């Protein structure tokens, strides 16, 4: 169709392209901003803009199938009596029951447990399905405190204090009425069917000094057993990381702007926060200046899709990564087998992002009992475990090629950038040069 118009001499505006025109007309029709799930869809500098320098004369590689490249990671070594020991450095990010079906939460737990990594609760509390199937479960402590109770706090293997997320730093959660079923409403102490507006600030502390006292309380309540994570959306990352470390964090969870969400305003997703690639070096610099790099662990999320992304994030200084959107895709989100159903609701496989509507054909981002049944938690868990294994093996492949016997031994010196922007953000040289923009010649 486009070719027909182009051949006819019609020219599309770069400023007012068809997506922009459609949004203006949608806004005029409805009078309300667009709400959707998923993450940022705009192109930003990312891990694709980096390349590894494999071993050569000056480095020797490890044998791909014979020499060990370890993948284990321990999170929370700073203060917690019981740090979290994971077999692989790819964790499952926080996603709520409510946003996701109980089957999806169970599948996340099953998949993560098979490969020895952790999964994370979300806004709305902990479900028995999730706890029962998760060997390592991180309990999120969010501004809304929906479903938050000390019994579940003690059941968690770590506590993640959420200050923000990459998709919407500065914004609270949102769960529209279609998904506030009786069970979800009961867990959150809300009326059934309302459009839930989560708070964006914690109700009983403000600022880093208060946060230090809040962390002290959480440690006291759990008898100093649990690692305390602090999750931030990537914005003023250098300063936020320093303040989080000063407040007493064991682990920093850094979520870049490509990180996913179950629901928020499109304008928020696309226009707030900085790319993951730009955030990691800021966080690492902050940690290094405080002599806390590797003492306070760094988990990076937001746009992790492949083992190459895992390896590159770790080479830049992350101790582990987190995945959310990719985990859902692995379980069947946006799968072509549901294309007819996607088209019936005005979307298509590969484009679906209306998680907030609760009509997910794959049975993942829904509370509809019939749709939820489409996801078999055992099968979903197996698919997720397969995917996590692939991520890990891909990362090991790259690490061995760089001569590393542990993923943690990857370093910025193993990387170059394909673009000036990526070089400046990641603070690695432009390929074929010694030039890191912003650091002189």
């Amino acid at each position: 169709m486009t070719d027909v118009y182009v051949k006819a001499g019609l020219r599309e505006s770069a400023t007012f392209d068809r997506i922009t025109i459609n949004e203006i007309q949608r806004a005029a029709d409805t009078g309300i901003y667009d709400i959707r799930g998923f993450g940022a869809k705009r192109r930003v500098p990312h891990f694709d803009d980096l390349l590894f320098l494999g071993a050569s004369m000056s480095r020797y590689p490890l044998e791909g199938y014979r020499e060990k490249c370890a993948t284990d990671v321990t999170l929370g070594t700073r203060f917690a009596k019981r740090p979290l020991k994971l077999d692989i450095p790819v964790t499952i990010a926080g996603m709520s029951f409510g946003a996701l079906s109980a089957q999806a939460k169970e599948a996340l737990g099953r998949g993560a447990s098979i490969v020895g990594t952790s999964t994370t609760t979300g806004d709305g509390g902990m479900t028995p399905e999730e706890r029962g199937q998760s060997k390592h479960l991180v309990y999120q402590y969010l501004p809304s405190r929906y479903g938050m109770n000390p019994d579940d706090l003690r059941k968690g293997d770590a506590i993640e204090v959420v200050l923000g997320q990459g998709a919407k730093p500065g914004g609270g959660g949102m769960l529209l009425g279609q998904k506030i079923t009786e069970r979800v409403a009961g867990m959150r102490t809300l009326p059934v069917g309302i459009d839930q507006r989560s708070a964006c600030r914690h109700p009983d502390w403000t600022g880093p000094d208060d946060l230090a006292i809040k962390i002290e309380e959480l440690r006291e309540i759990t008898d100093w057993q649990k690692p305390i994570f602090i999750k931030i959306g990537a914005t003023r990352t250098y300063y936020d990381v320093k303040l989080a470390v000063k407040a007493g964090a064991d682990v920093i969870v850094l979520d870049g702007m490509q990180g996913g969400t179950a629901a928020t305003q499109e304008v928020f997703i696309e226009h707030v926060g900085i790319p993951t690639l730009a955030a990691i070096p800021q966080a690492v610099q902050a940690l290094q200046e405080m002599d806390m790099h590797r003492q306070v662990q760094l988990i990076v999320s937001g746009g992790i899709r492949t083992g190459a992304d895992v390896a590159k994030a770790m080479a830049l200084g992350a101790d582990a990564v987190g995945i959310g959107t990719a985990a859902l895709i692995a379980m069947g989100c946006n799968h072509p087998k549901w294309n007819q159903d996607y088209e019936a609701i005005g979307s298509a496989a590969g484009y679906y992002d209306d998680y907030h509507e609760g009509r997910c054909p794959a049975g993942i981002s829904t509370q509809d009992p019939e749709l939820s049944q489409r996801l078999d938690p055992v099968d979903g868990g197996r698919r997720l475990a397969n995917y996590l294994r692939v991520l890990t093996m891909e990362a090991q492949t790259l690490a061995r090629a760089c001569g590393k016997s542990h993923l943690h031994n990857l370093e910025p010196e193993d990387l170059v950038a394909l673009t000036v922007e990526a070089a400046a953000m990641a603070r690695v040289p432009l390929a074929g040069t010694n030039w890191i923009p912003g650091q002189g010649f």
Partner: protein
Amino acid sequence: MKTIDLDHQSVRELNQGLHDQASACTEPEWLVLNPAGKHAIACGLNAKLSVDIQGHAGYYCAGMNQQASVTLHGNAGQGVAENMMSGLVRVRGNASQSAAATAHGGLLVVEGDAAARCGISMKGVDIVVGGSVGHMSAFMAQAGRLVVCGDAGETLGDSLYEARIYVKGKVASLGADCIEKPMRDEHLAELRELLNRAGIDANPSDFRRYGSARELYHFKVDNAAAY
């Protein structure tokens, strides 16, 4: 009675001792001396204990309380009884901001005044304040009852869900979606019961009731100005 002097022992020792009672309650009565504004005193309790704190406490005193009865003979810092699930917390003096924030159950009694955001995001707790409360009290309050025997500051009950608020004195202003509602017999009865449990002498007929207009429960273009 077990006595802990925080001039000589740590908050950690106190809390560990109190937490150990959850598995076998061998010391039901505790006396805490010289709290001196320390934070996180007697938080995370989960046993039928009676804890008397002689003095002022810092942040999060009796936080996440379950079952225990905690009495603070002084003023409380920020977030007293935050996220309480059950039991009783009594503050003989005044309470700082965010008292009983997000609490799910139990009863918080503040015999003096409570500062801003008293009962913020409360989820089922009952709160009785002998004096006045500060601004933004009961903000996004979801369930439970807040009783104010004095005055209420600005934007009381903003974005309220299903919590009920009773105020005896003046209300500086109501927040979005919070309205005055008629006092019916069942409300007088529940208020009388709450005042009795709190040990506060006041006439339920002197109070006004406030609750949610439920107009903001769904996103509507017409409500844009309210957000």
